[in-house]
C-alpha cells in the first residue's frame, strides 16, 4: 500500500480545467484486492456514484467498514446497492445515518425487502459491545425510508446520471448496474453468475457495451465443475455420511445460496424414500420470514419457478431449528446453519460438538472469506481451536463444494468477450486470484487495446474520455442549415448532458422555461412645454421622432424606437418602454433630463457646436485603451504602424487597434488579448443603435 504513494484526495472537486472534466475516476473504498466490504467510488463530470456499501465479515466494528474517510459523503449523488449480502449492503445504515451523505439510494425490490430482515438479524446476533455497534435497529428502520426501489431494466435519471440494472443471477434480486453519465457508460457487475440454477436466472448480457466494466474476480482463474457434477458430489457426500451414521454440517449464509441448497436437498430426499426418516434442519429464523419475499418476487427468478404449480420454497423434508437448545442430537442428521465462516453462532457450536468424530462431515458450500475458521479447515489441519479456547483434533471430513454463484474464469472471459469493454477494473477478489485473472485477461485481450486494472483500496484509477458535446439546433433557428462561416446566435439550453440551441421565441416550445416581456410605464410630474424635452433629447440622441398618440392624440416622442415619452397632461408626462438594459439606461437618462428641466428655470439655450473634433476623440480613445491594456497585461508598448505590442511572460502579442486583429505565437494569449480588446472597445464606443 505504501509503495503506491499517496492517493490523491477525492474530496477536491474542481472542474475549472477542461481536461479535469473529462476525467473519470474509479476508486475502490473496499473490495480492492480483497473480498468483503464492497464499495466502489466513481466520479465523472462532477457527478459521483457509489456502488455497494458492505462490511468486511472478518472484522468487526469500524474496522469492517470500507474506507469512507477517503471521500466526502455529501458529494455523492447516487448510491447503488447490487444485492443484499452483508459484504455488499451492511454498512448502508451506517452510511445513511451516521455520515453527511445526502444523495439517493437505489436497490431492487427483492433486495430491499430482504435487506431489512437480514440486517435486523445481523444487529441481533453480532456479539459486539455497544460502542462498537455501527448502527442499531432504529437506524435500519430509518434507512428503509430513504431507500428507493428500481426494477430491472427501468431507467432512472438523477442529476443527469442515468442508470438501470440487469439481472445478475447471484442471489434473488441481485443486479448489475449500468451507469451512463454524459454518454460514458460504466457497468458494475457486483457478484454475478452466468449459470442458470434451480431458482435463478443467469446474468444477462447488457445490450450496450460499456466504456468501463468494474467486474468481480472472486474465483480468479478457477473453473467450476458443471452444476450437475457438483450437485451429485454434494448429495453423495451427504448420503454416504448419513449411511455411516454420521452427521452433516453445512455452514451457509442464511439467505441466498442456502435456498438453492435446500431446493437440492428437498428434491433429493423426495427421490430417496429411504432417507426420509433422516431429519434435515435449517437453523435460521430468517428463512421463514423471507419465504413470502421468495414467493412474491418470482419475476426475477427463472421460468421453472414462475411456472411451478406449487411454491417450491415450501419444503417437505426440511424443518426449522431455532437454537441449539431445541436440537436433539440423536443419530444422523443434516444441519444447515449460519454463519458460513464458522466464526461464531450455531454453525460454530455444532462444529465444536462434531469435529472430532470421523464419521461426521462438514460440507462448505461456497466461497469462504480469508481469516475465518471455515477457510482454515479447508486445508484440513490436524487440530482446531474450539470456542472455549481448548484444542481438539479435527477428524471430521471436510468437503468444499462450491455453489456460490460467482462467475468462474470461463464465465468471466466469455462475458467480457461479449461486452468488449475498453477498460476493465477487477474488484472483489483476493490479491493472488485477481493477479492471475488479470494475467489471463491480458493474454486474452492482447490484440485489443484493452486496459485491465486492479486497483487496491483507496487507489484511484483515472481514465479520460473525450466527450464531444453535440448540440441540436431546433425551431426557427434551424429553418435552414447554416453554411460554414455563418454566425449562429441563440440560446444554448443545457438539460442533463444534452444541449439545444434555439431562438428565444422558441424557448417555451422546447423547454418548460418561458420568457417574459416587462413593459414599464412611469409618470413624472412636468410643467414645462413638451417641446423642451424634445429639444433636449435631440441633443443627446440621434433618433428622436415625434408623433401623436393614436388614441388620445397627445403628443409623443419616441427615442431610438425604444422609449416613448408621452405628454399625458399639463402637469405630467409618462415614459413607456420594454425592459432591457439599453432601454432602461435610455429611460433613466430621459428621467434625469426631465428632472433637470423641472429644476432649471426655463431659459433659452444656445445650441452649442460640437467642439471636439473626431481626431481628438480618437486620441482620447487610444489613450484609454492603452491604459486599460496596461492595467490588464502590464507590459504594453506602441509598436509599428499603430500596433500595440503586449508581452506577457516572454510571450509577445501584436494588436492591431483598428481591426482588432491579434498576432501571437501563443494561442492562449492571443485569445485573451482579443477578448480584452473587444470588451474595452465595446465599453469605449457608443452603443450601436441597431440593438434590436
Amino acid at each position, binding site marked *: 500500500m505504501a509503495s503506491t504513494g499517496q492517493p490523491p484526495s477525492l474530496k477536491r472537486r474542481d472542474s475549472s480545467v477542461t481536461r479535469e472534466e473529462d476525467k473519470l475516476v474509479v476508486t475502490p473504498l473496499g473490495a480492492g484486492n480483497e473480498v468483503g466490504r464492497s464499495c466502489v467510488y466513481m466520479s465523472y463530470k462532477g457527478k459521483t456514484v457509489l456502488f455497494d456499501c458492505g462490511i468486511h465479515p472478518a472484522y468487526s466494528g469500524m474496522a469492517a467498514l470500507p474506507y469512507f474517510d477517503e471521500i466526502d459523503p455529501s458529494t455523492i449523488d447516487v448510491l447503488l446497492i447490487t444485492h443484499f449480502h452483508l459484504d455488499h449492503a451492511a454498512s448502508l445504515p451506517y452510511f445513511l445515518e451516521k455520515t453527511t451523505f445526502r444523495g439517493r439510494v437505489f436497490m431492487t425490490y427483492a433486495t430491499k425487502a430482504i435487506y431489512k430482515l437480514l440486517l435486523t438479524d445481523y444487529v441481533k446476533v453480532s456479539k459486539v459491545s455497544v460502542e462498537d455497534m455501527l448502527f442499531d435497529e432504529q437506524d435500519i428502520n430509518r434507512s428503509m425510508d430513504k431507500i428507493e426501489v428500481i426494477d430491472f431494466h427501468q431507467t432512472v435519471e438523477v442529476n443527469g446520471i442515468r442508470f438501470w440494472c440487469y439481472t445478475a443471477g447471484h442471489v434473488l434480486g441481485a443486479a448489475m448496474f449500468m451507469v451512463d453519465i454524459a454518454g460514458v457508460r460504466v457497468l458494475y457487475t457486483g457478484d454475478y453468475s452466468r449459470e442458470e440454477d434451480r431458482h435463478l436466472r443467469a446474468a444477462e448480457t447488457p445490450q450496450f457495451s460499456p466504456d468501463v466494466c468494474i467486474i468481480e474476480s472472486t474465483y480468479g482463474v478457477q473453473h467450476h465443475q458443471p452444476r450437475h457434477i457438483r450437485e451429485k458430489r454434494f448429495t453423495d457426500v451427504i448420503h454416504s455420511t448419513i449411511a455411516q451414521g454420521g452427521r452433516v454440517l453445512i455452514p451457509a449464509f442464511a439467505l441466498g445460496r442456502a435456498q438453492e441448497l435446500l431446493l437440492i436437498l428437498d428434491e433429493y430426499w423426495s427421490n430417496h424414500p429411504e432417507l426420509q426418516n433422516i431429519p434435515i434442519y435449517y437453523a435460521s429464523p430468517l428463512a421463514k420470514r423471507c419465504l413470502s419475499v421468495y414467493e412474491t418476487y418470482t419475476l426475477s427468478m427463472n421460468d421453472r419457478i414462475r411456472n411451478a404449480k406449487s411454491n417450491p420454497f415450501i419444503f417437505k423434508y426440511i424443518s426449522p431449528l431455532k437454537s441449539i437448545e431445541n436440537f436433539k442430537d440423536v443419530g444422523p442428521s443434516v444441519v444447515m446453519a449460519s454463519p458460513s465462516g464458522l466464526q461464531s453462532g450455531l454453525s460454530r457450536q455444532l462444529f465444536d460438538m462434531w469435529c472430532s468424530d470421523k464419521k461426521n462431515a462438514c460440507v462448505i458450500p461456497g466461497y469462504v472469506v480469508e481469516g475465518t475458521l471455515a477457510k482454515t479447515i479447508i486445508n484440513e489441519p490436524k487440530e482446531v481451536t474450539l470456542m472455549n479456547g481448548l484444542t481438539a483434533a479435527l477428524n471430521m471430513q471436510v468437503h468444499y463444494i462450491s455453489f456460490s454463484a460467482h462467475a468462474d474464469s470461463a464465465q468471466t472471459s466469455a462475458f467480457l468477450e461479449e461486452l468488449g469493454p475498453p477498460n476493465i477494473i477487477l474488484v472483489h477478489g483476493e490479491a493472488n486470484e485477481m493477479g492471475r485473472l488479470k494475467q489471463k485477461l491480458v493474454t486474452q485481450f492482447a490484440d485489443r487495446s484493452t486496459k485491465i486494472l486492479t486497483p487496491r483500496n483507496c487507489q484511484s484509477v483515472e481514465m479520460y474520455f473525450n466527450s464531444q458535446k453535440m448540440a441540436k439546433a431546433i425551431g426557427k433557428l*434551424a429553418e435552414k442549415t447554416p453554411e460554414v462561416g455563418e454566425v449562429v446566435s441563440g440560446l444554448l439550453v443545457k438539460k442533463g448532458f444534452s444541449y439545444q440551441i434555439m431562438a428565444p421565441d422558441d424557448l417555451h416550445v422546447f423547454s418548460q422555461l418561458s420568457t417574459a416581456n416587462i413593459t414599464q410605464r412611469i409618470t413624472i410630474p412636468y410643467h414645462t412645454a413638451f417641446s423642451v424635452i424634445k429639444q433636449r433629447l435631440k441633443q443627446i440622441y440621434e433618433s428622436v421622432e415625434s408623433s401623436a398618440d393614436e388614441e388620445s392624440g397627445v403628443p409623443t416622442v419616441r427615442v431610438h424606437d425604444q422609449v416613448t415619452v408621452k405628454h399625458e397632461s399639463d402637469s405630467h408626462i409618462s415614459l413607456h418602454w420594454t425592459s432591457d438594459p439599453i432601454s432602461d439606461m435610455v429611460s433613466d437618462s430621459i428621467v434625469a433630463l426631465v428632472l433637470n428641466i423641472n429644476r432649471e428655470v426655463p431659459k433659452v439655450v444656445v445650441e452649442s457646436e460640437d467642439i471636439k473634433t473626431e481626431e481628438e476623440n480618437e486620441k482620447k480613445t487610444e489613450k484609454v485603451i492603452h491604459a486599460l491594456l496596461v492595467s490588464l497585461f502590464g507590459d504594453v508598448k506602441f509598436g509599428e504602424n499603430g500596433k500595440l505590442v503586449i508581452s506577457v511572460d516572454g510571450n509577445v502579442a501584436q494588436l492591431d487597434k483598428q481591426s482588432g486583429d491579434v498576432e501571437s505565437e501563443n494561442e492562449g494569449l492571443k485569445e485573451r488579448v482579443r477578448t480584452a480588446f473587444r470588451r474595452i472597445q465595446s465599453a469605449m464606443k457608443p452603443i450601436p443603435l441597431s440593438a434590436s
Partner: protein
Amino acid sequence: MGTSVQITPLCGVYNENPLSYLVSIDGFNFLIDCGWNDHFDPSLLQPISRVASTIDAVLLSHPDTLHLGALPYAMKQFALSAPVFSTEPVYRLGLLTMYDQYLSRKQVSEFDLFTLDDIDSAFQNVTRLTYSQNHHLSGKGEGIVISPHVAGHLLGGTVWKITKDGEDVIYAVDFNHRKEKHLNGINQSSFVRPAVLITDAYNALNNQPYRRQKDKEFTDTIKKTLRADGKVLLPVDTAGRVLELIQILESCWVEENLNYPIFFLTYVASSTIDYVKSFLEWMSDSIAKSFEKTRDNAFLLKHVTLLVNKSELDNAPEGPKVVLASMASLEAGFSHDIFVEWATDAKNLVLFTERGQFGTLARMLQADPPPKAVKVTMSKRVPLVGEELIAYEEEQNRIKKEEALKASIIKEEESKASHGADDNTSDPMVIDASSTHPLPDGPHGVGYRDILIDGFVPSSTSVAPMFPFYENTSEWDDFGEVINPDDYVIKDEDMDQAAMHVGGDLDGKLDEGSASLMLDTKPSKVVSNELTVQVKSSLLYMDFEGRSDARSIKSILSHMAPLKLVLVHGTAEATEHLKQHCLKHVCPHVYAPQIEETIDVTSDLCAYKVQLSEKLMSNVLFKKLGDYEIAWVDAEVGKTENDSLSLQPISTAPPPHKSVLVGDLKMANFKQFLADNGVQVEFSGGALRCGEYVTLRKVGDASHKGGGSGTQQIVIEGPLCEEYYKIREYLYSQFYLL
C-alpha cells in the same frame, strides 16, 4: 426535417368502440392496442385486416378486452405476425382475460372466432418490458426507442412513449392520475412537451367526486344491502378494475370486522390472484412499502373466496353475500346468470362499477330510469341425448375414419422420420383436423381422445403424442391394482381431474375447474331459451373505472403541453368538446381523425446537429434555472474533420441581440417574495398593488403554454419614486437576463 409521424385510427374514434390505432414513425408501423368488445363483431376489425400485414410491432396498453381482445383473432385471421410488446402484468392478465372471455362464451354459444390455442399462440411472442425501460428497436426500426410508463387504471397499464431523434410520440389512453389503493397514478413529469400526444376523450364530459368519499359511499351502499339481508352482485372485468374493488372491500371488511362472505367468481379467479400476488413491483408505493415492512402481501386475501365455477357458489350457504363476477357487460359469463337469478328480488343490489359497453345488457340497465323488465337469453350447454347423440356419434365415426386415413398417409410419408419430427407432426395434425372439420354439434375437443386411440397407433418412436393424463402409473398391492372408490363415482369432479393436466399443458397454471370446460369430453350442445326478467332489485352505477375525470384530463393535457394533440376514443360529443377545449387552452394543433383517415402529424420542426467546440464552451457562462442551464451563444459555423458542423467562437465582435428575460413569474409567489422583503402588497382587480403607488399586472392569456405567443407580458406602472425602482429591482431578480 423532423421525424415523420402518421396516425390512422383503425377502430374507436368518435365512439366508444374498442381501441386500435396505426401509428407510423418514419415508415415503421406500430399497431397500438388491438381491442375488441364483448359482442365480438368481426366487422369491427375490417380496418385492421387491411393493414395487418404491414405492421412491424404491436404495443398493448391495458390488459382488458377493449385494448387487446382482438389480438388472437387478428393473429390467426389477418396474418398479423409482428412482435408484441407489453408489460408483464398486461401480458399475464391479458391472457387470463382472454381465457375468461373464451370460456364464458363457449359456455353459452358455439363460439368459433378463436380457440384457446389461438390465444396462447397470440401471446407467445410478447416481449415483456418493465416501466421506464428503454427498449431500442433494431432492424427496420433502428433508432426508435419505446418505453412503457405507469398509466394507472389497470395493473400494468401503460402509457407508451415512442422516441426517435429526441422527439416523443406519446400514447396515453385510459390513464389515471390519482393514486389508488393498489395502483400508482401517471407521473406527468415524464411526459413534457411531446411532439405528438395521442389521448382519449372517453371521460371528457365526466367529473368524479373524491376517491375517499367515493370509496366510503361504495362500501356503505354494499353494507346497507347486506344488513337488509340482500345480496350484492358486482359485474366486473376479469383481472383489471376488480383488483381495486377487492382491495377496497378487503380493507373495509378488515377494518370493520365484517363477516359477510365475498366471492370472486371468474373462470380464472384463483390464477388471477396468484399472479397478481407476484406483481407487487407494479403496484402502488404503499403496497410495496407495507410488504417490505410487514411482508404481508396485500393480495393474500382473508375475506374474499376465489371461485372458478358457479356450482361452488350455489353450494355456499344462503344469505347475504357479495359476489364479484365477470363479465362487466352482463352479456355472458357468471354475472349474466347470477343477474337473472337475483334480479327478481327487491332486496338485492346490482352495483355497476363501470359504464357498460354500448348496446350491452349492462348499458341498458344503467339507463335512467332503469327498465322494469329485460329480455334475456338463457343459454346452457347440455349433454346430447337420444337421437342427437346417435347422429353425433355417427358423424364422429365418419370423421374418425377420415382421420385414420389421413394419418396413415402421413405416417407412410414420414415413417422414417425421427423422434422429434414425428412428435411434431402428429400433434398439430390432430388439432388441425378438428378445426378444418368443424363439428356440427358440441365443442371441437370431443373427438380427440377417440381419434388418438382408435384412429391410428402412434409410432413406437414417438414420445407421447397424447395428452399427459393417460400416464396413470397404477399402484399394485397384494390384491391387485389399488383402486380408489371415488374413481368410480360419476361426478363432475371426474372431469376436472382429467382436465387438470390439460390445463397445465396450456399454461401451467390455469384453474382446474375452467379447464374442464375447454375439453369437455361429453358431446353437448347449447340450449337457449329467451325469458323476461322482472328487474326488481336495485340497480346502481358508481364510477370505479379508475380513469382521470374531465377536469383532471384538461389540466394534465395543458401540463403535458404537446406540440400536436390527437384525440381518439370517446363519443362524438366528448371528442368535440375536448377538441374545442384543447384548441383554446392546450395547443393550436388538435386533430380528431375519422376511422381509416390518415393524418400526418409530422412535426414541422427543423433541426440540425452541431458539435460544440471546446473553445466555444470554455467561454460560455451557464445560468442555472431548475433542471436547465441556459446561456446565450454567438458562434461561427465551422466544419469538423468528419465533415459535420461545429460551432467555433466568433472572431469578430458579436452582433448585438435583443436581450431575453427568462423565467416564469407566478404572481402569488412574487407577492410572497415582496412581502418577505417588507413591501406592502395586495391583489386588487387582477393586479398586484405593491406599496402605495406601483401596480404590477400580467396581461394576455394566463395559460401561456398553450400556443399563443409563449411570452408572458408583464406591465409595471407607477410614478417616478424610489419605490418604483426598488420593486423593479425585485421584479428583475425573478428573471435571468440573457
